[in-house]
């Protein structure tokens, strides 16, 4: 877990890439791939937990260790490891290689002088550059040739594909006032590989439940990229399915998944395990969803991501007034920082939340810093900075 095995990648991501890129990437994906970036006119980049990878036309690729500038000056020697994705590490020494952060420079292959012998590195012709056609084709495949069906997603800047992976879009925004109508001239696509880390919430789960079928209103506080949604998803699964170890029976859960991140639905089918008693309102506006769920689905708890916008407070108050619990998240580094935000501050001051879980990435994404009890703000759990992904690596 926490990784995508190559087989899954072949089925879930590769078919959505343009034919050319597909051929390049075939069988060359590392297991812990995090992102694939397609920027028109720029090199194709894959990122995994170790850093960025570039590709060349012979299909091999190498890592720059993020030290692109180090080899900029002619005559400066440096040793780079050209690692193949199949895990074989082929070392090669590259001397006097110019980079200049200009991908085109290495495209000619003329500036590359390996071992001073005049032969090119790996016999390459430089990096694979993403062409406009690649972006267009990839977009076509992602939207199943039906752009109209993804209007709302495009407006929000991303599309969720099967498997829960998300494709971010950048280009020229067509707007009307503050409202984004569409994105045209799409230049960049960022494919973020979704990670479901089952069991990452096991540790904190006992602190959030009350007896065998109730829980505390909980707010997960975390900076971006710290596993907030991953944690929320796993908590949802535990709440819904139940957890024998903690003697928790499982309760009815309604997930308002505004950004299709929690359950990552594809055609309505959740791509992540969110439990057996879970109803999902996929890509539903948060406020409308909370009210809808409340009326129609009789949940015990409503789960939603990233509160803090106008109107969220009222919706949450309505949920609580109906005797339904709430489990949600907010961007922030600590509770004191959260208080600076009006909507959240009011909720904190009214002691709406009974438990706060503070995350960080000190020990990797998903580090639980502390759990705070909401009545007197007393610390009830101090994390030992354990990385949730650690178990898998």
């Amino acid at each position, binding site marked *: 877990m926490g990784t995508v095995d190559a087989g899954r990648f072949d089925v879930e991501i590769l*078919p959505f890439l343009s*034919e050319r890129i597909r051929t390049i990437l075939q069988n060359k994906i590392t297991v812990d791939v995090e992102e694939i970036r397609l920027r028109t006119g720029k090199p194709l980049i894959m990122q995994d937990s170790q850093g960025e990878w570039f590709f060349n036309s012979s299909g091999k690729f190498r890592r720059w260790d993020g030290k692109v500038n180090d080899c900029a000056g002619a005559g400066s020697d440096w040793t780079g490891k050209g690692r193949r994705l199949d895990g074989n590490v082929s070392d090669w020494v590259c001397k006097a290689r110019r980079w200049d952060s200009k991908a085109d420079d290495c495209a000619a292959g003329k500036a590359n002088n390996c071992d001073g012998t005049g032969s090119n590195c790996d016999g390459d012709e430089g990096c694979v550059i993403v062409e406009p056609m690649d972006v267009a*084709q990839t977009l*076509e495949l992602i*939207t*199943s*040739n*039906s*752009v*109209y*069906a993804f*209007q709302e997603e495009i407006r929000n800047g991303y599309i969720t594909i099967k498997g829960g992976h998300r494709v971010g879009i950048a280009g020229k925004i067509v707007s009307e006032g503050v409202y984004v109508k*569409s994105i045209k001239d799409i230049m960049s696509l960022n494919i973020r590989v979704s990670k479901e880390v089952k069991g990452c919430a096991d540790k904190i789960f006992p602190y959030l439940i009350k007896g065998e079928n109730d829980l505390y209103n909980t707010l997960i506080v975390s900076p971006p990229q710290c596993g907030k949604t991953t944690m929320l998803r796993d908590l949802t699964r535990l709440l819904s399915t139940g957890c024998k170890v903690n003697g928790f029976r499982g309760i009815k859960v309604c997930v308002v998944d505004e950004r299709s991140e929690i359950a990552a639905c594809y055609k309505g089918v959740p791509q992540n395990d969110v439990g057996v008693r879970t109803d999902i309102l996929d890509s539903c506006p948060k406020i409308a969803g909370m009210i809808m769920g409340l009326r129609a689905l009789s949940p015990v708890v409503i789960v939603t991501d990233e509160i803090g916008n106008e109107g969220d407070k009222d919706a949450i108050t309505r949920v609580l007034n109906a005797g339904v619990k709430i489990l949600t998240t907010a961007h922030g580094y600590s509770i004191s920082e959260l208080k600076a935000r009006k909507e959240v501050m009011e909720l904190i001051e009214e002691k709406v939340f009974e438990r706060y879980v503070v995350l960080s990435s000190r020990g990797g994404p998903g580090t639980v810093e502390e759990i705070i009890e909401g009545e007197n703000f007393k610390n009830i759990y101090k994390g030992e900075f354990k990385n949730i992904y650690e178990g898998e690596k």
Partner: protein
Amino acid sequence: MLVKILGSILILASTTYMGYKKSLKYKRRPTQIRELQACFHMVENEISYLESIITDIFNKIAESNKSIISDIFSRTAEIINAGNVTGAAKAWETSVTEKADTTCLNKEDIEILKSFGKLLGTTDKEGQLSNIALTLHQLKNQEVKAEEEKRKNGMLYTRLGIMAGAAVVIMIF
């Protein structure tokens, strides 16, 4: 003499058949245009209320009524899914070209279908809907014309077939 009689019967039968075939084209065309319109109405509904993706819509159409016309839609979905051509527009055009001869539609109708495909899937909802509306409008006009032609030419070709056959037979004798 017997050979002559047999021969003339054969000639008469075949020309009559030819005439009949030709008239069938006229007779069936309005029906097929109406079918097309029904299919496009379905596409319209699917897009405006459900925002389903093209392949889903086209497969649904093919499921709900199997006919020469709905074959165009299912074939398009097939081509898209096969992934050999890129773009729904290309897939649609290929499918229409392939299926054109199996239908009773004339050149004009086929042109309308092809021009519908050019915007298929590439614009937002409003764009798709207005494209469908335009196609429906054009098909409506074609239907009126087709009815007219059916009335005029339908019987004409059946009769012409018989007449031509009869003329040849008379010349033989």
